[in-house]
């Protein structure tokens, strides 16, 4: 029987929410790794029982866990993330050079082609790859050592590589996004990289149209049309129709174009979801929680609020905390800083909390099971 697993990373452990294809009754397993920050959990698209979890703590550093039975049991795998070669420096908040220091893994991206291959996006910004199921990691240092690397600067949340998109059609094409450097694209499987930020305008940097320095919060792609990318930036929602060569704004009638998360409907490549918040300091909108959906690939947005709290609600949704399933009626899921995970079984028309009162949610990933 088909089903759904919602892999939820929180500030104090991980939870796996499971349901059948009706998505009405949910079981909650967890906390897994109680007390640890779980920045991200993600399953292999080739083997849904192969899961990876990024486990970290300010006390005890970065660890990596792997499950081969859908999250029932876990075993630690490799946690040595060593920057390749001379470490070098990037810009610190005050503009001075600062040595690259590994802090944690924000995002894991298992490969479409090899269940043993998985990518990890790190803070301080770097991309690592494992080809042995997470047992060992090597940096793809062409990214960090590209021309602009020494000029990258951290955003308020740290200098994190938070988004990794593997192009499912064009062999060797990878997109990553870094706060606050921007989008970078490789066309040779991660060996060399170029900035991919043309069209981004950021008033908070000295040159608003600079090649790098933009605080990109998240990018998303539909698998059937990988040349189209959607972006939620630190102000502005944008899209690219040419694999990141050029970007243009699609904020349109959004009440505010600040936010963190963005995702695409599983079956409709022009249907996009964002969760706008008022600003970089006020992470809410007037006490109501609303998802905005565009069915036109941007610009025309409609609020979705049925089933979501509309008064006295001041939660936020972080960049990796929204995901979709691929059942016939597409399910949309997001987790909040208040510990709720909301789900919609009908592409966003209506919502319900499938779990409440978890620790603050850092990430949500969804597996659609055969």
């Amino acid at each position, binding site marked *: 029987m088909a089903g759904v697993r919602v892999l939820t990373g929180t500030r104090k452990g991980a939870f796996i929410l499971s349901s059948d294809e009706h998505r009405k009754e949910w079981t909650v397993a967890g906390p897994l790794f109680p*007390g640890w920050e779980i920045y991200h959990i993600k399953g292999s698209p080739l083997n849904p029982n192969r899961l990876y979890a990024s*486990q970290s703590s300010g*006390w*005890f550093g*970065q*660890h990596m866990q792997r499950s081969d039975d859908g999250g029932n049991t876990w075993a630690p795998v490799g*946690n040595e993330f*060593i920057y390749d070669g001379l470490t070098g420096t990037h810009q610190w908040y005050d503009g001075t050079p600062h040595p690259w220091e590994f802090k944690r893994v924000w995002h894991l991206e298992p490969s479409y082609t090899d269940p043993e291959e998985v990518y990890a996006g790190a803070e301080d910004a770097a991309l690592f790859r494992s080809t042995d199921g997470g047992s060992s990691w090597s940096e793809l240092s062409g990214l960090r050592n590209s021309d602009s690397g020494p000029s990258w600067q951290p955003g308020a949340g740290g200098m994190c590589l938070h988004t990794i998109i593997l192009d499912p059609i064009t062999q060797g094409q990878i997109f990553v996004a870094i706060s606050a450097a921007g989008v970078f694209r490789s066309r040779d499987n991660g060996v060399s990289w170029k900035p991919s930020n043309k069209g981004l305008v950021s008033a908070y940097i000295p040159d608003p149209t600079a090649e790098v320095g933009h605080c990109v919060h998240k990018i998303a792609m539909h698998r059937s049309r990988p040349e189209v990318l959607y972006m939620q930036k630190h102000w502005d929602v944008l899209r690219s129709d040419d694999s990141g060569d050029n970007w243009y704004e699609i904020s349109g009638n959004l009440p505010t174009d600040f936010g963190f998360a963005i995702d695409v409907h599983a079956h409709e490549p022009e249907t996009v979801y964002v969760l706008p918040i008022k600003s970089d300091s006020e992470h809410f909108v007037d006490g109501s929680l609303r998802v905005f959906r565009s069915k036109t690939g941007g610009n025309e947005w409609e609020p979705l609020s049925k089933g979501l709290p509309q008064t006295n609600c001041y939660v936020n949704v972080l960049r990796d905390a929204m995901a979709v399933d691929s059942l016939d009626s597409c399910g949309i899921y997001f987790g909040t800083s208040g510990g709720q995970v909301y789900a919609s079984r009908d592409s966003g028309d209506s919502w319900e909390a499938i779990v409440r009162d978890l620790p603050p949610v850092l990430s949500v990933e969804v597996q659609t099971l055969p």
Partner: protein
Amino acid sequence: MIRVKLPDHLCTLAGADHEIELHIQGKPTQQNVLNALETRFPSLKGALRDPLTKKRRPFVRFFACGEDLSHQPPDLALPLAVANGEEPFLVIAAIAGG
């Protein structure tokens, strides 16, 4: 035999009891205790000290016999009471965060 006490987080990470007994190769030093601990529980590599530099993590502390040994040289001999198993070597998660 040296007794080592671990905090909750590291017990769950290593799948270890709160108190474990280690047989140390060579001199009973902080460094040799940590080496033996990581050999027996490989998942603790990187949890107590940086995997590359072997420097103690800033929020990890080592106590024994009512003393903070965290800042002692890692190759200094541990107190006799720790070395002969009378007193445990305590791994402590520093109080931080209010």
